[in-house]
């Protein structure tokens, strides 16, 4: 693993982390979805590059799934849902953008420190990819914590899944079963989410997760 092969893989994986940061500061729902679609495109490029480098043709399938489902179908469906629900306003953050970005930076630093120290036996690319993947996962979780709106929490979760796919492809030779399963469960998860969004909007006329908090505890 050297030269161009390594650099491209590195660039794409690093790009995913960068886009995760871009996701963190989006304050419009449509923009959020577009950035998410971009991240999924970069993910599918990264997976395709891994398929080429590792000479593992089954990974092309994973790349295609990422492109078709995550970059096109899912963002399109969410666009439709947002339009139908009429909730295309600003996304409310629980925490300000500045502190969120700082926490994000700290999380990336944490991921790098943990992974680069630990996986010394694994080859360099796998190790760095895992570090990037962990960063994307952690930033995805951060996004789920700081966003109030249900749609952006879902986007946070899906970007977290992008990080997992990156990790799964970095683990060389990991059986296809798992990757398809991951893609499949994302799809299933989306169905669930769709159902939920509809039900939630039906009942609350908003998908703001705060509206759900009325029942917290046991007041009645």
């Amino acid at each position: 693993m050297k030269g161009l092969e390594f650099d491209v893989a590195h660039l794409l994986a690093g790009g995913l982390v960068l886009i995760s940061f871009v996701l963190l500061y989006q304050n419009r729902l449509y923009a959020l979805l577009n950035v998410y679609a971009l991240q999924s495109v970069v993910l599918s490029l990264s997976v395709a590059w891994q398929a080429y480098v590792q000479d593992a043709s089954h990974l092309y399938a994973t790349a295609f799934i990422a492109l078709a489902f995550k970059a096109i179908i899912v963002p399109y469906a969410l666009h439709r849902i947002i339009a139908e629900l009429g909730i295309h306003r600003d996304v409310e953050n629980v925490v300000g953008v500045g502190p969120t970005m700082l926490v994000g930076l700290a999380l990336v630093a944490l991921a790098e420190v943990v992974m680069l120290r630990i996986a010394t036996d694994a080859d360099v690319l796998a190790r760095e990819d895992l570090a990037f993947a962990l960063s994307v996962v952690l930033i995805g979780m951060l996004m789920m914590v700081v966003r109030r709106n249900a749609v952006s929490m879902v986007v946070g979760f899906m970007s977290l899944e992008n990080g997992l796919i990156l990790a799964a492809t970095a683990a060389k030779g990991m059986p296809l079963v798992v990757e398809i399963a991951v893609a499949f469960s994302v799809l299933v998860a989306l169905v669930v989410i769709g159902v939920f969004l509809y039900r939630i909007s039906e009942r609350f006329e908003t998908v703001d997760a705060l509206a759900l908090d009325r029942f917290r505890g046991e007041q009645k």
Partner: protein
Amino acid sequence: MTAETIAAIVILALPAATAALLALLPSYRISAALNLGSAFITLLAALSLFVAAPQHNAIILVDDLNVVFIVLNAFVGFTASVFSATYIAHELETGRLTAPNLRFYHAMYQFLLFSMNLALIANNIGLMWVAIELATLTTVLMVGVYRTPEAIEAAWKYFILGSVGIALALFGTILVYMAARPTLGEGVQGMLWTRLIDAAEAFDPALLNLAFVFLMLGYGTKVGLAPLHAWLPDAHAEGPTPISAVLSGLLLNVAVYAVLRFKLLLDANAHAFAPGPLMAALGLVSIIFAAFMLYRRRDVKRMFAYSSIEHMGVIVFAFGIGGPLANFAGLLHMAMHSLTKSAIFYAVGQIAQVKDTQQIAEIRGLTVTHPLLGWSLVFGVLAIVGLPPMGVFMSEFLIVSSTFERAPWLALVLTFGLLIALGALVLRMQGMAFGAPTGSRAPAKASAAPILAHFALVLAAGVYLPPPLVAWFRHVAEVLH
């Protein structure tokens, strides 16, 4: 194909096929009967695994450890389907559920059994992960089935927390594969339990440690350990009661099973850190936390959900302490908790139906208006808090005494937590079971047979455990180190 292999296939294929069939059947009466019948045949197949286990292959693995889980799963799955058949009809009458909802419910019920069985029987850590994810998604849908704002909030919370947990577990699973790859090579070999456990000694310990942290947090969320438990009380309180029983009695166990398997990997590697203290600490935190939270509960199903957090804490604590005696007690406690808690939920579900409320304050004098339900509740609470001569007493006694041997201070904390929880549950139970009766006196609609069957087993286990069963549990406990 041998008879054992067929039994293993039946355990997986039958619930899956029934789920597909139930999704098409419109009549709920036929569905309920089919649900019950299928669960019964699955139970028979599971019991046959006790007698003869099939040879492991790339997909299935039945060994002495998971067969205990599989049989328990099939048994409670069956009794819950018996309970559900009578319970759910009443929900239809009162209009809480509509016919299409009910069709969906039955299909999901079998699908849940399928995914839990798959998680338990899978030899592949990736497949196990997929199965647990499926089980999570299924239960999310079932928790939200009433479609009240509360139910939807509960399902949403469960979905968000459950998915994050599942995501962390997948990352851990990938790390385990990475750790195994230098030794076992690329491909499916690096994901099979049977191969991993033999080769674990040569794995990179640092990678294995990190993997376990992710797996513990991920599957620990599904176990409901504090502070990752936030989804659990809501999901128990807002879903249909048969599902509360299955959640508490089974799904939490499946997650414990996953943690246990990975603990075995770390135990097999001399350089990896010992996972015991981490598990014992998380378990103890859950016990103490849940014990105090029990006092503040006003909703009866929510109260017993907190009691489940406490008992999951006890189980994880026992496995964390380790050693043959504590492992034996942990397994026994898991079985006893499943049986007792699901029976309590069966009783509580009927109580909530006849009284039309889940608020503890609005339920009074049950032993007068509904003697059977009232005394069942009394018995269930006395059993679950660990009073002799019931089975939970025996397992808790063994856990406390084995802890005394290894870490006396921890035993004090543990006993303190158990006593605090005992106080809360007995206090609330007295209020509900005795005193001037309130509310409806209409007779209960659902069958009491599952409750009585579970209680009989719990009592029998406390009084006399058959030697073959003890030998079996002991053998498994030794496998666990």
